[in-house]
């Protein structure tokens, strides 16, 4: 069971190549408002997150996940 901060740091790494505008990344960075990610890019990231921790992020969770911090929380819960 990886620590929450390890998960957060790794998610930030995974976002790196998709962060075309080099937006500074923080806990409360929003995927749609700050990173301006379209849904295809988001799903690409979701696939990478799932592969990284061998988990499945169910579709019905996505609407509630607005920020990087919230995604890290969700991953932490799923890897427990």
């Amino acid at each position, binding site marked *: 069971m990886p620590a929450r901060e390890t998960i957060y740091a790794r998610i930030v790494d995974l976002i790196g190549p998709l962060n075309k505008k080099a937006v500074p990344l923080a806990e409360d960075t929003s995927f*749609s*408002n700050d990173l301006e990610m*379209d*849904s295809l890019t988001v*799903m690409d990231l979701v696939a990478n997150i799932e592969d990284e921790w061998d988990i499945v992020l169910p579709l*019905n969770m*996505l609407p509630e996940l607005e920020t990087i911090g919230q995604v890290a929380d969700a991953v932490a819960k799923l890897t427990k």
Partner: protein
Amino acid sequence: MPHLSNEPGLSIAPGAAGTVVPTPTLDPLPRRIADFATLGDALGYAAQGTRGLNFFDARASLVRAYPFAELRTDARTDAARLIAAGARPGDRVALIAETSAEFVRLFFGAIYAGALPTPLPLPTSFGGRDAYVEQIRTQLLSCDPLLVLSPPGLFALVAEAAAPLDGCTAHDWAAFHALPADDIELPSATADDIAYLQYSSGSTRFPHGVAVTHRALLANLAGHATCTRVRASDRVVSWLPFYHDMGLVGCLLSPLANQMSADYIATEDFARRPLSWLTLVSRNEGTTLSYSPTFGYDICARRISTSIDVSERFDLSRWRVAGNGADMIRPEVMQHFVDVFDAAGFRADAFLPSYGLAEATLAVSMMPVGEGIVTDLVDERVLSGEGYAGVSADSAIGRPTRYRAIVNCGRALPGLTIEIRDEAGLPLADRHIGRLFVAGEGVMAGYFRDEAATAACLSDGWLDTGDMGYLADGYVYIVGRAKDMIIINGKNHWPQDIEWAIEQLPGFKAGDIAAFAITTPGGEEAPAVLVQCRTSDLVERTHLREAIRTKVRAITGMSCVVELVPPRTLPRTSSGKLSRSKARSQYLSGEIQPFEIAA
């Protein structure tokens, strides 16, 4: 967990819990080309064979095989449950259109109850919880259903969306399927009854439910089989959502009414692992029919890196019909796909361009099998106004002529007639660009409970598609969507929705705002919006633009190019209405100059 092996062919690795075997491609049941009075009859016939629907997970492992016979039994039981819950013929039953057996049985449950199944969309991205609830609520208000059913995971959001509606009960469909079902006699529908409502191409803010009769639907489904020259070895593979007309009509109802087995991966799984689509095509020992908008082919080609041996991993040599449609077909993207997957045996002549819209059930025209993608080069200046689509003799003012490749979208389906008309409504000759009208079997009955919108596009049996194009020797070429629809990654967006979002900000009113699609240097479509603005303060303008961008994103989920322009610059039509197409061309030509913004 049982899974299909990656070997070619449909061998099954036994699992501890038993095996899941996909429904067969071949079946002795004589094929009937959708010649049924109703969709219920079509399922009744398909259920006499062994074919059916197959649901795969993101890694292309089979999760559920669902023979048509089992679907029919489940659907008739669900029909009894829906009737017990109060559903009467003509009532709407809204369904969150998950790619699953549960959705499909409820869709047909509603059909057998004589109610109108109305598929609603799924969430597609991170965030946007409130926007999703709002979208579902708006569509529920429009179709006014007796019931809305959702997968367990989305039930809380869907129940919240339905809460303000009188007389609409939300159900978690897992619980609904556990309800007792009486053995009752089911109502019988007729060919001219409305079969279902479809919201796939409507604006989110001002949705229009397309009402389709059994007769129109089955005529269109027969057209698919005729135009693709369906054969015994055909199997459908799809990742398209069931809340979209191409996914629902083209990839679920069509294989069912023409008795073909179909393999599905969920759209959200495709978005994560697009190559699973090609794995399913590769595995099919028979011949494959599979359709996608341009972006589906695009993301597959882009996912192939040099580390992937395409010839080893895929076998696309039996992909008989690779359908193109649902958005503007981009020939250069298709060429890239051919270049990448040639090594896997993909044949360029498998491409089958088509044109259609939900208002005509689905397909209006399809390219004959084997003719592939054929384009016309047309002068951009001809395209921006109505005119003759050919190579123009003069590039008079010495400016270089820019051509756009226009894709041949094939011939009208049997039973449909296409006419290109000028602004006065008179039919135009070959190669003259005008508005595309269509009449015949397959045209919708109308928009649900919206006589004004119906009258605006349907008269004397002719449907005004709103799209611009031309005919040449019986082939139809689409040059643009006159309804100003913006299509991004296969999803339709309406300029009205973007404009409405901005009108919610203080100080902006309708008429100050024009939204349209522009083509980015990368060749993709992107939304742009021009907003008339009275302030001369540079800092104030920067704030305004940021506020507009944020508002549009919050409401439509799209990132939009925002340009502030001086007051009274947006062009009007002769009747005083805002002209988005003129605004677009004036913006692109530099005639409309946006304000400078502080960096």
